[in-house]
């Protein structure tokens, strides 16, 4: 038929002239790579609106961003240890208020279960402790646990589980609103734990180092 211009030759199903190319063969090259990442634009964008309102909103926006970071709703991810403790970090520490939601408005499952850290519930706390991401004092804790299991019993157990509880707490966010003094104690202990290399369980609590050695010493020190 008239449409077939011969085998192997491409025939267009539509009128090529309508698209804008003449009957010749000069079609534009096929592009083989993706378009450039930042193509040049012929038309530059319109400058931004400026005015009192816009400036105020801009300042507001930046302020809001900063304020949000300080709110108790901003849950921080646990940071890795800094290489050097900086002096000015002390002045830049932000103290966040504790926020307690209104439990009546939330489903019951939202309430944190293991609230009591002082109670003798070692199993639950240990499970929770193992679940949360542990820091590098994990080995220390494990060792402590083993020693405690063989060791003094309830009091040290409590302390062990207190330590785990306080670890959880410190990981979950800044909580400087210390309600009880005991928590303050835990925090200090933990700080001490981090800063020196000695295993805390070396001296088990309840033991009196001075008294023991005095009792057992037969020879004088040189």
């Amino acid at each position: 038929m008239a449409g077939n211009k011969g085998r192997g030759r491409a025939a267009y199903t539509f009128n090529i002239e309508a698209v804008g190319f003449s009957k010749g063969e000069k079609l534009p090259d096929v592009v083989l790579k993706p378009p450039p990442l930042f193509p040049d634009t012929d038309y530059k964008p319109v400058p931004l609106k400026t005015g009192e309102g816009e400036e105020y909103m801009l300042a507001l926006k930046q302020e809001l961003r900063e304020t949000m970071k300080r709110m108790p709703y901003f849950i921080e991810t646990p940071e890795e240890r800094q290489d050097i403790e900086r002096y000015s970090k002390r002045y830049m520490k932000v103290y966040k208020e504790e926020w307690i939601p209104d439990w009546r408005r939330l489903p019951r499952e939202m309430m944190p279960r293991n609230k009591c850290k002082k109670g003798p519930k070692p199993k639950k706390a240990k499970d929770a402790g193992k679940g949360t991401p542990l820091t590098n004092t994990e080995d220390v804790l494990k060792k402590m646990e083993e020693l405690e299991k063989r060791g003094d019993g309830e009091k040290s157990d409590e302390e062990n589980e207190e330590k785990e509880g306080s670890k959880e707490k410190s990981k979950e966010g800044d909580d400087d609103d210390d309600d009880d003094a005991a928590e303050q104690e835990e925090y200090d202990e933990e700080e001490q734990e981090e800063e020196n290399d000695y295993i805390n369980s070396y001296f088990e609590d309840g033991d009196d180092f001075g008294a023991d050695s005095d009792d057992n010493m037969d020879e004088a020190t040189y």
Partner: protein
Amino acid sequence: MTQAEIKLCSLLLQEHFGEIVEKIGVHLIRTGSQPLRVIAHDTGTSLDQVKKALCVLVQHNLVSYQVHKRGVVEYEAQCSRVLRMLRYPRYIYTTKTLYSDTGELIVEELLLNGKLTMSAVVKKVADRLTETMEDGKTMDYAEVSNTFVRLADTHFVQRCPSVPTTENSDPGPPPPAPTLVINEKDMYLVPKLSLIGKGKRRRSSDEDAAGEPKAKRPKYTTDNKEPIPDDGIYWQANLDRFHQHFRDQAIVSAVANRMDQTSSEIVRTMLRMSEITTSSSAPFTQPLSSNELEFVGKSGDSGGGMYVINLHKALASLATATLESVVQERFGSRCARIFRLVLQKKHIEQKQVEDFAMIPAKEAKDMLYKMLSENFMSLQEIPKTPDHAPSRTFYLYTVNILSAARMLLHRCYKSIANLIERRQFETKENKRLLEKSQRVEAIIASMQATGAEEAQLQEIEEMITAPERQQLETLKRNVNKLDASEIQVDETIFLLESYIECTMKRQ
């Protein structure tokens, strides 16, 4: 939810609430409604952290929960509500223009905290205002309460659904989650409180604040033993009402541009009179009697003529104007001419475009195809023969405003996500420098507090060298530009979203 929207939500959540909340929130947006354990399992976060994140999200009205059968509670995220976080500065600024600083701070506190009781809001705002006042003056609670009541009357703040008060106790165990109800009438009802007191100035180690009797202080400390009179009644900002206000503003300014000032005033009055009586998504306002205008149609003759503002038409023309200006800025004024032509003629052939627009054929073709490829236009085929042969088919160019608006909206989401990412990248690049300048500022501040000489202060300031200062300046300028762009793209998003919502409601 499109990928672009999810990405934007993720960036917003991360900036405002941190990574843990972001992970949970994005997961919920992606997968829909899920119970607690599944969330913890799928995201790989501990149950404790998931609980905390969900508490935060529910507090800010970003996630809602529902009790399903067998007592399982499922949580669902509202993606569109997360995107509203972009608009917070606009809400706050609008309140400032309407109700001055007091109103501004009230709305700001409500937005920052999600929901609050009225007494908590009043106290916080009074404290903040007292900080900014001169020494010796304090802000009275009554003034703040008045502004709060005015905001509630004009529906800018509304009550949250509350736990129903059950007189009788359930025979069985209490339900796993409370079902919150709200009565339409009560939504703007302000509880009768007598809040007496003044704002407190926050002093680090002072015992008596400016002129306040000591007896009053224990009552308003954070751990107060007294029961709060409006316990359980929480308020939130009514975003729909703000949107209504923005829409009215946009319409009024459009009318002022097209016609003169007086017509815009008339439209403004009409809108204001119907502010509370119309729901936010009604296509027509309540009929009133006034003069005639373009967006205004006549809907009856009683009372000297009842007129109605055709909101849908107004929004449609605003959206069209946005599209036109985008085409103009991207492709040039000739393209814009072609675009307007196709809009006007609804369906038009390529040959006719060349004739009507008076543009040479080659250029016209080029521009048409460019717009077609960017999806501003579409082709409508009209076959002459049943076999749809291309050489014997009419191809008509047409603009479908709804789909073009959707496309543009999607692009806006992408561009804001890009802006935020670029801003974060810029900040991260210069993190070291920023931290250094912050440290220097902290040191200077502490030295000034302890009293230091001028020479010492100067020495510390010189720790930041001149090129570093310049770098900081450039960084600040760039970040400001990016932030301002975000705010303006959000305005476009608002227009397009309103138009799309209005059109969908009609169908």
